[in-house]
């Protein structure tokens, strides 16, 4: 039989063992070490046969299992002799340490599952970046304050930003996919120029930083210039370009 081995399916030997215990419907408090060791070694052998890198942790666990198995195989006469001494019997179970580890690991694995849920829930809620309050800061006296931030605060802020950005950016990409016509963009531009009265910075005519929109806007401006509906001014090379509606030109006749 050929197997397709997915090594990434397990987080480590403890995870693999939990999986085996679960699949074989074994009582974790009473693990049949011989069985589980065989199963475990099967996996390891399969990995090796497939020339996959077997992380050393898996081999260490294999050795541990074999050690426990051999301890379990030791003659049981001691147990019979000291039957009365239950505590001795329990404490000396060679499986104890492993079971404890498995239980502890399992509780954190469960917690990780809950974290995943929290992560997903949080993803359903959208917040907004702090507003830029520059317009309110004119003449504002900043309280002098010592910095109390660490690199971690900065990284945290960055991650928050990256998470948040997901919504902001592609807003247009998706929705404006359908064609924006030059004609309708020309109307928009004229409407905008009339509303603003007087001249407007060239860049203000590009409110949407998406390629198709920019191209259409640019072509619309050329067309409007050709039709002599707008003025375009630039005082010097490289200085800001201003656009204004020509006097007497109201809305575009369609």
């Amino acid at each position, binding site marked *: 039989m050929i*197997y397709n081995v997915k090594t990434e399916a397990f987080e480590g030997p*403890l995870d693999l063992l*939990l999986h085996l215990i679960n699949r074989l419907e074994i009582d974790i408090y009473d693990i049949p070490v011989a069985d589980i060791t065989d199963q475990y070694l099967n996996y390891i052998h399969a990995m090796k046969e497939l020339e996959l890198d077997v992380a050393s942790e898996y081999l260490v666990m294999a050795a541990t299992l074999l050690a426990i198995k051999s301890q379990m195989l030791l003659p049981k006469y001691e147990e019979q002799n000291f039957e009365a001494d239950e505590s001795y019997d329990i404490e000396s179970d060679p499986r104890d340490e492993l079971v404890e*580890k498995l239980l502890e690991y399992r509780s954190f694995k469960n917690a990780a599952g*809950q974290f995943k849920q929290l992560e997903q829930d949080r993803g359903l809620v959208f917040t907004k970046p702090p*507003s830029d309050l520059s317009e309110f800061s004119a003449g504002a006296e900043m309280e002098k304050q010592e910095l109390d931030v660490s690199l971690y605060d900065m990284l945290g802020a960055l991650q928050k930003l990256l*998470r948040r950005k997901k919504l902001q950016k592609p807003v247009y990409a998706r929705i404006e996919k359908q064609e924006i016509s030059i004609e309708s963009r020309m109307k928009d531009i004229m409407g905008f120029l009339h509303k603003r009265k007087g001249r407007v910075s060239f860049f203000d005519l590009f409110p949407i930083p998406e390629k198709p929109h920019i191209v259409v806007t640019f072509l619309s401006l050329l067309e409007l210039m050709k039709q002599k509906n707008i003025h375009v001014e630039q005082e010097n090379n490289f200085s800001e370009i201003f656009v204004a509606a020509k006097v007497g030109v109201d809305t575009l006749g369609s």
Partner: protein
Amino acid sequence: MEVKHKGALEALLFAAGDEGLSLLQISKVMEITEEEAANIMGSLDEDYKSEERGLHIIQLAGVYQLATKKIHSDLLKKLVESPGSQGLSQAALETLAIIAYKQPITRAEIEDIRGVKTERPLHTLVTKGLIKDVGRAEGTGRAFLYGTSKEFLDYFGLNTIEELPELQNSEENYEEDEADLFFGSVESKEV
């Protein structure tokens, strides 16, 4: 409580965005007591419960902020091109869970619990600002001790670390796909 206070608080929360505001900050800016601030907050929160409102007040990492209601997430997702981030890997989530419940904790202790090397997930978590080193362990190694950060709370939508779900050890919670994750017969793919 004056009516216009509610409007004022709404404006403040809106401007603060995801930086959020504490009651202390609000009380200072509005020149009211923290108790009054809390009352206005409560009243505003009550208003937001109406179905006509798309926002609500959430408490994250100790501050109040405005956020959209979960009920509208499907709609909002339409505004994003690639829905959702991939989220943290299983390794990172496990590592983070261990740190969250056992902090402060060293890398060696984490690796002991997970049974595998944990350098990469730790690095990812530091990079993402979810954990930070909070000192050094006693003893020879003087290893770094890790703890969760403020961003951790924000990331998982928690107000304080006490809001973490209780660490459970019980059997019934442990469920796994019956499907064998490791071996799958090779109908589809050869190795």
